[in-house]
C-alpha cells in the first residue's frame, strides 16, 4: 500500500516540516485523531479508522484522497447526513463567527489557568482535555459545513470561469477573490507596526504571538521566545516598511479590472450563465475570509498543550531540561504523573537520550513524499 505526504504538501506545506517527537506521536496525535474521527462520525455519519494515517520517522503520511472519498461514499449513513449539512449551508458564515467567538473565549480561559497549583493528576487530566479541545476546534473550524462551502463555491467558480469566460488562463478566476484582508494580513500589519515602534511588542504577542508554526509540540511559538522575536524585529527594521494601504488599493484595483474583463469576455449566449456565475461569485466571496481566517485560529490551540507538557517537564527531576518531556512516551508520562518515585530514572534518561538523537537525525533528512507499507 502507498502512503503519501501530498495532501500536506499541497495545502499546508509548512505543517510537519519538523518531525514529530515521541510525545506528539504517542499522546497528542492519537488522542487528537480519536477526537477528530469521532466528530467526523457525528457530523458526517461515516467511520474512519485510525490506521488511515501513518507516521514514519516523525512525518505524517496519508492514503490518497480518492481512497478516503471512496471510503466515505460507500457508507450509506453518509447520505442522510450530507442532506442535513446542505440545509445548514446558508448559515455557515454566521456559524463560523459563532464558533470563533466560543473558541477564543474558551482558549482565554485555558490560558489563564494557573497550572502551578494543579496536582500531577489534575495536570494530566488538564493536558488530555486541552488536546481534545484543540482537536475539536481544528475539526469545527476546518471540517464543518462552512469549510465545505468555501471549497465547494470556489471549485464551482473555477469551473464556471473556464466555461463562461473567454480567457485561455482560467487560473485568473482567483483575481475575483482578492482584496478581502484576512487575519494573516492583519497580524502582518501589526508586526510591521511593532517594527516601526507604533505598537507595543507585548500587545502584538498577546494577540498574534502564540500561534503554532509547525505540528510538533517541541517548537516554541514566537511569543515564548522573546530573544528570537527581538532578533526578527531587528532584521525587519533594516527593510523599508510596506505600504499596506497602497497594496490593498492595488489589489482591489486588480480585482475590479478582472471584473471588467469578465464583463467584456462573458459568453452570454449560455442560458442562465450570468445568473449562475454571479450567485457563485457572491457565495465564494462571502467565504474567502473564512477560508483564510480559520488557518489563523486553529494554530492557536497548540500553545496551551505545550504549556501543560512543559509544566510536567519542570516537575520531573529526572529530566535534564523541561523540553525533554517531549521525548517521553504517553505511558512514561502517565506513570511519572501518577508517582514520580516509581520511575526508573536512569532507564528513562537513557531512553530519552536515544529518542532525542534519533529525532535529531530525522530533522536532517528530507522525508520521502511517498512510502510503501
Amino acid at each position: 500500500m502507498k502512503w503519501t505526504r501530498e495532501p500536506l504538501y499541497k495545502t499546508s506545506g509548512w505543517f510537519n516540516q519538523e518531525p514529530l517527537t515521541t510525545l506528539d506521536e504517542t499522546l497528542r496525535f492519537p488522542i487528537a485523531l480519536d477526537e477528530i474521527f469521532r466528530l467526523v462520525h457525528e457530523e458526517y455519519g461515516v467511520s474512519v479508522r485510525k490506521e488511515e494515517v501513518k507516521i514514519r520517522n516523525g512525518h505524517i503520511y496519508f492514503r490518497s484522497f480518492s481512497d478516503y472519498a471512496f471510503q466515505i461514499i460507500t457508507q450509506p449513513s453518509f447520505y442522510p447526513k450530507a442532506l442535513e449539512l446542505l440545509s445548514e449551508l446558508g448559515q455557515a458564515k454566521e456559524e463560523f463567527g459563532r464558533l470563533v467567538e466560543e473558541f477564543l473565549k474558551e482558549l482565554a480561559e485555558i490560558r489563564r489557568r494557573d497550572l502551578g497549583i494543579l496536582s500531577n493528576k489534575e495536570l494530566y487530566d488538564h493536558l488530555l482535555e486541552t488536546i481534545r479541545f484543540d482537536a475539536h476546534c481544528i475539526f469545527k473550524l476546518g471540517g464543518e459545513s462552512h469549510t465545505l462551502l468555501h471549497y465547494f463555491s470556489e471549485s464551482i467558480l473555477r469551473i464556471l470561469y473556464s466555461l463562461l469566460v473567454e480567457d485561455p488562463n482560467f487560473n485568473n478566476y482567483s483575481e475575483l477573490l482578492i482584496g478581502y484582508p484576512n487575519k494573516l494580513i492583519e497580524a502582518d500589519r501589526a508586526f510591521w507596526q511593532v517594527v516601526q515602534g507604533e505598537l507595543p511588542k507585548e500587545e502584538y504577542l498577546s494577540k498574534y504571538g502564540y500561534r503554532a508554526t509547525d505540528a510538533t509540540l517541541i517548537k516554541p511559538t514566537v511569543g515564548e521566545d522573546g530573544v528570537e522575536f527581538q532578533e526578527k524585529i531587528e532584521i525587519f527594521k533594516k527593510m523599508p516598511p510596506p505600504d499596506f494601504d497602497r497594496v490593498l488599493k492595488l489589489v482591489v484595483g486588480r480585482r475590479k479590472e478582472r471584473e471588467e474583463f469578465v464583463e467584456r469576455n462573458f459568453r452570454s449566449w449560455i442560458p442562465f450563465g450570468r445568473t449562475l456565475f454571479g450567485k457563485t461569485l457572491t457565495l465564494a466571496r462571502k467565504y474567502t475570509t473564512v477560508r483564510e481566517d480559520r488557518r489563523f485560529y486553529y494554530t492557536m490551540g497548540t500553545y496551551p498543550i505545550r504549556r501543560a507538557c512543559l509544566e510536567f517537564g519542570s516537575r520531573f527531576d529526572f529530566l535534564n531540561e523541561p523540553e525533554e518531556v517531549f521525548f517521553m512516551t504517553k505511558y512514561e508520562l502517565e506513570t511519572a504523573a501518577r508517582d514520580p518515585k516509581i520511575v526508573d530514572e536512569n532507564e528513562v534518561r537513557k531512553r530519552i537520550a536515544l529518542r532525542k538523537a534519533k529525532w535529531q537525525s530525522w530533522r536532517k533528512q528530507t522525508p520521502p513524499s511517498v512510502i510503501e507499507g
Partner: protein
Amino acid sequence: MTEIKGIPVSTGKVRGRVKVILSPKDFSKFEAGEILVSRSTNPEWTPLLAVAKAVVTDTGGALCHAAIVSREYGIPAVVGTQNATEILKDGQTIEVNGSEGLIRVSEPEVDKS
C-alpha cells in the same frame, strides 16, 4: 534558458533577483524587492512576503499559505515546483510568471566571490 514549472497561484509577471531562504534564520539575508525562493512558508514568514517581489516555493498548492498571502499582497507566486530551491541560486535574475506557473532563468548564477 532554464525553465521551472510549478502551480500558478497568484497572477502577474515580474523579473527580479533570487534569494533562497530556507529557514527564518536566513531572514536577515533577504532584501526588500527580491524574489523569495523557499521550500514552503508559514505564518512566521508573512512579514517577508510583504516586501518580496514574487514568491516561488518547492511545495504547496492553490490553497497553501504562500498562495493565500501572495494573492492578498498582489505579488506573483508559483508553488509546488518540487526543486526550485535546489535549481535557483542567490543573485540570479529570473522571471516569475504567476499566471502560467513558469519560472524562467535568464541569467547564469552570479559568482559572489
